[in-house]
């Protein structure tokens, strides 16, 4: 529970091996709603990203987004837009910005920022000073989203 780790073993290994080189949440460079460079300097793994997308303790993206590619999961939320064809609508640098900190792209959005570790109030002690996802998990999710074409 403590860190956003603990998903698929693969994701953990990817995250730890790349951890030292990862851009810190506070240093992610946003330019007009895009984040150009990989947060880890490494490519994301779409298979690990798919697991992060569904995992209730990690991305839990399904809480708010329907996604036909994950039809084996029984509950898909409707708070945000469907993910089908999302890669036809947004490029990699835009998706990286949306997953890192959606508030930089959609003003006032309900969607959580997945890669910030400060700037939120009253976090539960276990989560204080941490981001929901690691840099590598963000990259993995972005790589996964890029596979969602129609």
């Amino acid at each position, binding site marked *: 529970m403590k860190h956003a780790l603990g998903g698929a073993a693969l994701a953990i290994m990817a995250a730890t091996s790349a951890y030292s080189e990862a851009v810190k949440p506070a240093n992610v460079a946003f330019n007009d709603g895009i984040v150009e460079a990989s947060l880890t300097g490494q490519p994301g793994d779409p298979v690990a990203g798919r697991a992060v997308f569904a995992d209730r303790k990690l991305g839990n993206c399904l809480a708010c987004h329907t996604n036909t590619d994950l039809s084996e999961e029984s509950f*898909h939320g409707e708070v*945000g837009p469907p993910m089908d064809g999302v890669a036809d609508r947004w490029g990699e640098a835009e998706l990286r910005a949306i997953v890192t900190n959606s508030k930089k792209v959609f003003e006032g959005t309900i969607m959580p920022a997945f890669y910030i570790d400060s700037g939120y109030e*009253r976090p539960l002690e276990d989560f204080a000073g941490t981001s929901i996802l690691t840099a590598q998990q963000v990259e993995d999710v972005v790589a996964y989203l890029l596979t969602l074409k129609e």
Partner: protein
Amino acid sequence: MNLKKWVTFAAAAGFAGGAFAQDSNSLSIEGEAMVTETAAPAHMENVSTIYSGWRFRSTETQALETDDFDNPAFVFVEQGMDLWGKVEGAAEKSCASCHEDVADFAGLRTQLPRVDDGQLVAMEDLINECRTERMAAEPWEWSKGNMTAMTALIGLQSRGMPISVATDGEAAPFWEQGKELYYTRVGQLDMACSNCHEDNYGVMIRADHLSQGQINGFPTYRLKNAKLNSIHGRFKGCMKNIRAEPFKEGGPEFKALELYLASRGQGLSVETPSVRN
């Protein structure tokens, strides 16, 4: 309406169970009609109609509330009745020693929380004041079984009556504090109550159908934990879900939030004890 264009799209694509906003069912309990939908009070700028949480539940869950025999909360109301007559404390009194009939409390639930001597008090405070001041007994914990049994029993006496809390005069600063809390984002997920219960009621958030977060049915029996749940216990649960450090049950923040939420339900019938999932 807060239906979004992609909700229609999602349902057409065959996802998310196709739950749309609140349903149009009407509730009567033991033959008495309840108001589960009414015009929003003037202070609510972003919502025109308010709905009881009952309107967002499945037909199976809804049915459990229509008949006291089927309503699992009544086991606890019975326990409340036993506690009502039970002598406890150094003064050797029970509730019944001072209050002739629990039915005399009809209307009380609709007006709480309220300001007494400059303090905002909830029903739990009134009950504990009797226990400590008049019975010389131990206070009950805010959300424990004996307390929720008693708040259910007393709340039931107002069933069918419209929520009508005072928000002006001495109550105004507490109400303002509650409103502020309602719209303040908290937790690692950085959300406010309004993000879910005002901006997104009627849509699915994973397996849950979001309601307006009304408190007219509390304490509420939840199928999830098979017991009565207090208002502050529910606030705590919602805060933990967004990874926020909850305020203290019975503390000033939750009481202010309770007052503000009650005022967002003005005119809805008291449904205590309600059934939710």
